[in-house]
Structure formats: C-alpha cells, structure tokens
C-alpha cells in the first residue's frame, strides 16, 4: 500500500461495528517496532475498520502488564514471553491475555564492548559470523575462569523477554552456561548503551536503536542480530486482555485487521521516511530523527569506523503476523528450561495464542493489499524446538 492509496481510503469507513462502549485502549513502548500501531493510527486504519483506538506510551513493560491487569488498558504491544508469564502469575501479577497478532519479527541486536571484541580475537573478516563469535566467546569465558578473572557481564532489558531467552539459547548452544559461566543483568534500555560505555557491562541484547546508540558512543560493536539465532523470530505481539476479547471480539478483530494493513505499508521502504517522522513525533522524541530513520532500514553501521552493512531489522511483513502456538510453546519451553516457569503441559499456550482471531481479521483486510490469509509455514527455529 502506498501512502497515496492509504490516504484515499482514510475517510471511507468500510465497517461499522455495533455501537459498543468504547475506545480500545492500547499501550506501547518507545521502540521502532511499535510502528504497526502508530502507522495504523496515523493512516486512519483503525477508524476505517470501525474502531476507535487510544494509544498510550509507557516506560516499562510491567507498567503495561499491570495497567492491563487492573483494567486501565485493554492491551498493547508485548514481548513474546510476557503473556505466558502473566498467565502463570510469575512476578506475582496474574492476568489472562490473548495473543491476537505478531506486530514485528526479529530486529534486536547483540552488542559487545570494544574490549570484549578485542578479547575474542576473531579471525580476520569473520566479525559477523555467528558460529565464530560463539566459539570465541566460549574460549574467552573459559580463559577468564582459568585465569581467575571476573565473569563476563551481559545485560538484557527484562527477564521475560525474547532478548533474555534468545541470548541464553545462543550462549547454551556455544557451550556457555548462562546461569553460571556469565552474569546476566537487567538494565532499562535507555541506560544500556551508557552502561556499556562506562564498562559496567561487557555486552547486551536489546531492541534498536540501542545497539546503534552504543556504536555512536564508540563503545561497542553490533556483533549479532537475534535473527542470526532464529531468523524472523516473533518479537512483538499484540496482546489483549481476555476479558476485553470476550466482551468485544469484533473490535479486537478490527484492531488486528488495521495492524495487518499497517504491516503492508511498513513493508514498503518508500514509506519509511514518513514512518520515521511519525515514530519520532509519537514514540521516540528523545532519539534524533536520523537515527530513527536508520533503524528502520536494513543496512546500518555495526562498528564506529565501518561502512553500513546488512542488518536484520524489524520485519513487519504481514505474512509473519499470524500468532503461532508452536512459537508460543517454544518460549514456554525456554522459560521452563531456565527454571522461570513450572513444569507442566503446554495447554496454557492454546488458551493464550489465538490464531483464530487473526484469521478472522485477515478476512476483513482488503484483498487489494495482497494479503495471504494463510498461516505462515513453519519457520526455521533453534534446534531444540524440532
């Protein structure tokens, strides 16, 4: 969809839902991959599908979780493990959520300090090869232990996050025990690049633009994309409170349809200048417009003095937006693997992941937008999902 086509359709509501109470109140975090919500709002796609949506920016994932739990929000952008954690009541707050769409896939960066990169002593020209980095990292961890030097300190943004579980998975696959061989810390994203610059951490896994920020500060190198661990892994979900979904399934479906259409708009790089402007205004005013613009593109500077290179940025392709319970089960398995979730059956995933709602929404989204309403084929996943 081009901006022009989108503009043509703005004032022609296609759907009119039965008069219902309310505004759908959604929360989002100041990150590049909140874009489908912002774009759907700016293009009037929510209105076109007959639903009024209010978008609230938040500073913490748990604030989003708690606002939904106490009924101040109906849902919002969420990390994949969060609805599972909320359903299991981990962290003391229990909340029944439904995952109705994938807003964005992949796009996080694993950034290592210049000192650690030097310590890894990577073979010439192999600075971005995941298997080389894994092997070098394992050697460095063992060498530190043998010499009695401090363990490496790696940061993630939050415990129940894709960042935490993908990083752990990568470390474990390299033969590094994330519980004992390194120290994992949680650091709020806006502080994470500064922590690296000040030498309090040796590396971190976070959403963009924070990896690029570290490169700007000349303190780190983007060593890996999380897509190197799992290409096109689901990253941000749209999760809605189960109570709202039960009360108002049509409005929820309309919201999903609008975000699917927003995904088509986002998939066209010709629209990125406009998207960057909206994101800068509404989600990331503290980040320079040029940085927001760069974070949407698929090439970026991995190290201070290098030319921009390919990077697996957030993927908004609507073909990846159907929430897959198989993927949900993978996150749950990771949570069990590290002792964050109790053993048991995967039944909870079937209650939380709702591809049926997405499929209803896919039928609402205009075919002119080239939407293929099928569930995407199985994505390549890390080994232990097989």
């Amino acid at each position, binding site marked *: 969809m081009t901006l022009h086509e989108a503009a043509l359709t703005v004032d022609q509501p296609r759907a009119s839902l039965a008069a219902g109470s309310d505004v759908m109140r959604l929360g989002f975090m100041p990150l590049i991959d909140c874009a489908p919500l912002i774009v759907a709002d700016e293009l009037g796609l929510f209105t076109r599908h007959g639903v009024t949506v209010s978008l609230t920016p*938040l500073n913490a994932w*748990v604030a989003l979780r708690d606002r939904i739990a*106490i009924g101040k929000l109906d849902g919002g952008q969420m990390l994949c493990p969060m609805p599972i954690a909320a359903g299991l009541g981990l962290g003391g707050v229990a909340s*029944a959520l439904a995952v109705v769409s994938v807003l964005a896939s992949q796009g996080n960066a694993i950034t290592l300090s210049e000192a650690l990169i030097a310590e890894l002593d990577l073979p010439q020209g192999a600075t971005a090869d995941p298997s080389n980095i894994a092997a070098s990292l394992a050697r460095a961890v063992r060498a530190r232990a043998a010499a009695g030097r401090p363990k490496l300190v790696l940061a993630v943004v939050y415990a129940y996050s894709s960042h935490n579980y993908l990083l752990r998975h990568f470390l474990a696959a390299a033969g590094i025990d994330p519980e004992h061989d390194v120290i994992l810390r*949680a650091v709020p994203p806006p502080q994470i690049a500064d922590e690296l610059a000040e030498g309090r951490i040796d590396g971190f896994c976070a959403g963009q633009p924070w990896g690029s920020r570290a490169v700007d500060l000349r303190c780190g190198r983007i060593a890996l994309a999380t897509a190197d661990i799992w290409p096109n892994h689901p990253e941000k979900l749209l999760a809605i409170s189960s109570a709202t979904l039960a009360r108002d399934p049509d409005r929820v479906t309309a919201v999903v349809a609008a975000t699917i259409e927003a995904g088509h708009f986002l998939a066209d790089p010709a629209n990125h200048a406009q998207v960057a402007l909206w994101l800068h205004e509404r989600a990331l005013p503290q980040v320079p417009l040029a940085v927001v613009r760069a974070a949407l593109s698929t090439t970026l500077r991995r190290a201070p003095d290098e030319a921009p290179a390919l990077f697996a940025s957030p993927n908004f392709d609507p073909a990846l937006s159907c929430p897959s319970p198989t993927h949900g089960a993978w996150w749950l398995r990771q949570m069990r693997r590290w002792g964050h979730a109790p053993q048991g059956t995967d039944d909870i995933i079937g209650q939380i992941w709702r591809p049926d709602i997405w499929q209803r929404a896919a039928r609402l989204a205009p075919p002119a937008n080239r939407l293929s309403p099928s569930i995407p084929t199985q994505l390549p996943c890390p080994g232990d999902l097989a």
Partner: protein
Amino acid sequence: MTLRVLIVDANLERAEAVASGLTADGCLVVGTVPDHADIIALVRSSGADVIVCDLDHASRDAIDAMRALHQDEPRPVVMFVDRTDPGSTEAAMAAGVAAYVVEGLHPGRVRAVIDVAVARFTAHQALRAELAEVRSALNERKLVERAKGLLMQTRRMTEEDAYRALRRLAMDQGKRLADVAESVIAMEKLLKL
C-alpha cells in the same frame, strides 16, 4: 523490627511527603530517588524490605527481573498510581499487585498500606511454593473438587451451590474454572493464617 523502605519516584514532592509520613510511623526510609543508573545495586545495598514505586517508572522492569535473573530474594513492591480510580485498588489486589497507594492518600496512612502489602506478599510467597505442589499433585478436576469441598466446609454450602458459586466467579472474571478454584483454595489458606 523496623521496616526498611526504598522510594523510587520521579515526583519528588510526592516521594518526600510519603517519606516523612513513613518516618513518623516508625519506618526507616533508606532512600528516596527519582531514578538510578543501577537500580538493582541500589536495592541490594540499601537493604530495602519493600520498594515504593511509581506504577509507570522506567526502572520497574529491572526491579521485576531481580528474582528471575539474579535469584534475589523477591521484595514486595507498592505502587503509586497517577489518579484515584474507583475499582483500581480492588482490581490490583485481585491481580496480585501487592498494594496500591493512590494519590491524595494521607501520607500517614501509607504505613498501613505497606503493612498489608508485606503481609499479603509473604503469604503469597508461601502460597506460591505450596501451589506449585498442588498444581503438580492434582489435576484440574481435583482442584475444582477441593475448592468445592472447602466452600462446603467453610461456607456451609451444598455441593451444588459450591459448584455454582465457582462457575459464576469463573464467568464473571472470564477465567477458567480451575483457575478460580485455585484462587479459592489460596484465599481460604490466607484467611487461616
């Protein structure tokens, strides 16, 4: 025992008011910070028993992650919400948020809210361990049977009434029957403490 409280709030005026109220009530306020670069280190070094925090504070994810990432002793977190909203406090309690301090609440009453939060949190921690056992030992049908039995015993209900009460609660809250049964079992234990 003196309760050690750490206050994390960008609204310093509100934080100071609560701090003086707590001090007057015999609490030891170990810190009042608008923000902190290493919030986890601060929580540890301050020896805080309880954290009073703004609901939307950017440090909350790191505090929440302390247990899962760092195997720290979990601490109750009491939260400020931006404005009084009837129903919020009840919803927060039902969801398991330790407690809520709403704006406009007299600083002198904060101590009482925190005491309730700490008591609830302690009970909740003990229950979590027990519930993990219950969950693995009993399948869902057994949970419902047990909740029914508890209701019959403590509320003098007939079996049919007990089942209907559970069913209604499940429908009202949009939860599964087994989840409601689990809450009933937890609540009965809490009341016995």
